[in-house]
């Protein structure tokens, strides 16, 4: 058998190739690329691995904007211990492997003082052990319940947002007593979704309710119609939490499937973060409920801190960008970057932090913290911090869709989400 097929048989035009390579060489040696060499001395350098691309891109875009606004404000306030804060952003592609590489890059090339901003739990789970090995303080803005479960390490902290376990524990009593006890769960089939599945199942059981079906959807799924027939007729409440670029498709298809006779629906706002509620076909969501860490729509009792936060980040009263009302923020999550940055500032000031040789002091200072008062630094609300588990606790909001907007109908207390954990990272070596 004779094969004439040869994928490498085309000829080359040397001049063109040299030009291309020359262009690449010039681009790679430009000052913009050699940035680490030009980093300013005497600044506090914070590495910000962001989900600029990949399935977390809509979160990443707003995380970056929020973090940029927070850094600007910190610098306007005089920096940290008199030092200017410099934020170095790199894309991690919402990919665990690249996320880990970026953490390594921050630690060993940029030699940052701390890293903050990772959200997706699969990226956090991969990157946190490396941060621990490299002994660089790593502040996650995730909701992963990994810290309380003792799976991470002494250098990893979550001081800006509560974890899934606390969230579902705080809300289960309200769900069980107000909208129904027989729940069907639809969740993404990876750690974040599994946390929802496991912790909510236990929490609703404690309320005398039960989960009648658990529908796991692969995170890369783009069409959901085939999953909905698994919803049992006895379902009183559909509990949904989805993430990624297909969330809008998911919610639309859910509406199409359910039609006019639907059970109560309780969703995590993750299913509609960065999505406009006024999208046609989302009308069926009227009267349904959502969890929000931080209410997207400015409420009647809006605090001055919320006004301040929206103004600084550039978000209007509807949770959209001031520059473009069609650009909806990930309001319920992105505050975590803001609050985390101010916690880092506070801890560095406590430790009288001057440079990377004091990273251990920063860790110890973090572990000594117990609470954060509501204010401009913590616009989402007051919080309690557990220095042993490195996890923060706060209030949750349950909002109802009314007139195409979310109105808060219940706000939990901090204590509702507190849970015991045998984990004590302070016993680990520094």
């Amino acid at each position, binding site marked *: 058998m004779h*094969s004439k097929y040869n994928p490498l048989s085309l000829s080359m035009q040397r001049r063109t190739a040299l030009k291309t390579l020359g262009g690449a060489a010039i681009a790679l040696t430009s000052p913009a690329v050699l*940035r680490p060499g030009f980093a300013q001395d005497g600044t506090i350098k914070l590495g910000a691995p962001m989900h600029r691309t990949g399935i977390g891109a809509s979160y990443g875009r707003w995380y970056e904007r929020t973090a940029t606004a927070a850094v600007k404000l910190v610098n306007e306030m005089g920096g940290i211990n008199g030092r200017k804060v410099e934020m170095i952003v790199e894309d991690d592609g919402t990919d665990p492997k690249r996320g*880990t590489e970026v953490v390594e890059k921050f630690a*060993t090339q940029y030699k940052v003082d701390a890293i903050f901003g990772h959200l997706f739990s699969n990226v956090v789970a991969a990157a946190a052990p490396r941060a621990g090995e490299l002994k660089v303080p790593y502040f996650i803005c995730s909701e992963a319940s990994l810290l309380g479960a003792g799976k991470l390490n002494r250098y990893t902290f979550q001081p800006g947002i509560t974890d899934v376990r606390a969230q579902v524990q705080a809300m289960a009593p309200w769900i069980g007593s107000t909208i129904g006890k027989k729940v069907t769960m639809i969740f993404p089939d990876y750690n974040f979704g599994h946390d929802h599945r496991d912790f909510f199942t236990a929490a609703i059981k404690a309320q005398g309710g039960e989960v009648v079906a658990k529908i796991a959807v692969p995170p890369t799924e783009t069409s959901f119609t085939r999953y909905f027939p698994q919803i049992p007729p006895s379902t009183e409440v559909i509990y949904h939490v989805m993430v990624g670029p297909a969330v809008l498709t998911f919610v639309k298809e859910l509406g199409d499937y359910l039609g006019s006779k639907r059970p109560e629906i309780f969703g995590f706002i993750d299913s509609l973060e960065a999505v406009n509620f006024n999208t046609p076909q989302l009308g069926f969501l009227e009267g349904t409920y959502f969890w929000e860490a931080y209410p997207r729509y400015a409420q009647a009792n809006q605090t001055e801190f919320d006004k301040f936060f929206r103004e600084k980040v550039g978000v209007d009263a509807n949770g959209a960008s001031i520059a473009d009302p069609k650009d909806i923020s990930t309001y319920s999550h992105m505050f975590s970057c803001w609050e985390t940055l101010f916690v880092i500032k506070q801890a560095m000031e406590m430790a009288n932090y001057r440079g990377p040789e004091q990273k251990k002091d920063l860790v110890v200072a973090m572990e000594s913290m117990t609470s954060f008062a509501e204010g401009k630094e913590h616009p989402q609300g007051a919080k309690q911090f557990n220095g042993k588990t490195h996890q923060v606790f706060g209030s949750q909001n349950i909002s109802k869709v009314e007139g195409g907007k979310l109105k808060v109908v219940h706000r939990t207390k901090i204590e509702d989400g507190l849970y015991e954990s045998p984990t004590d990272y302070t016993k680990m070596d520094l």
Partner: protein
Amino acid sequence: MTASAFRKNLTLTLLVLAALLLLQFVLPEYYVLMATRMMVLAVFTVGFNALLGYVGLLSLGHAMFFACGLYAAGLSVYHFGFSLPAAFGVSLIASAALSLVIGAITLRTIRVSFMIVTLMFAQVGYLAVLYFAEWTNGQEGLSLPASARQMALGPWTLNIADAVTRYNIALVLLAASLGLLLFYLKGTRGRVATAIRDNEGRTEMLGFNVFAAKLEMFVLSGTLSGAAGAAYGLLFGYLGATFASFQYSIEALLFTLLGGAGTLLGPLIGVVLMVAMIDKLSELTSAYFLVIGVILIVLILWFPKGILGTIRERWAPWLL
């Protein structure tokens, strides 16, 4: 290959390896880490290139073998507490066995069908990693504990998470894979392989068992890829489904095309340039994959023989 050409190739390979050995003393910390990663990926690409460059078979599913080695080594350490050498041995056996089975099936197809079938098998591999989440922890993956990445070596403890140790292990692995391929190509079997690439019909007419020769190279290629996967998992301590994804098969192709398919050191050059480029471009733009896509198109259209392939064509015909 003449004796003098072999000597030249051997000398060049040894010089490159010696340079890599010395490099660890001058490179800053981050670049030592990068170079380690590059060398492991180079082993993967050497494996991929063994098939594409020397037999002319373009597989689009080599991430499967990389992931096979990664998980075979990682899971035997994570779940069963295997020692590091034992885990590495398991990964070699597993990836050799997998490539034997997959090769026996896919080599019944040719050209585009071969690409599609290897791609489909790789997708099965990727989905299997997600499906057996109880063992693999699916998308999130597993991190090997620090204690599992150490082993006793006489009176000493060898910590493979240590940057210098890791660098040298990667270097030894790269040297072994280059040496293996060099000597393989020097022998009769290597010449049969390249004969198949140049003219499969004629090789068959001459009485050689083409299928067996292709399968042999397929197994060698898959095992080298698996060894790279195992090294990656053990040295960097993370096992994730990403490594089994389509993107990884394409990256191996890209590295090979850039460095020069059918050249011994081309994969190393391709990996070094491409990984450095991804790392630097990602600082400038989030569209770095777009740029890399454009580079691939440019390569295929105007630069199809890659860097070493072009050098061989113009200046150094003895290059293997």
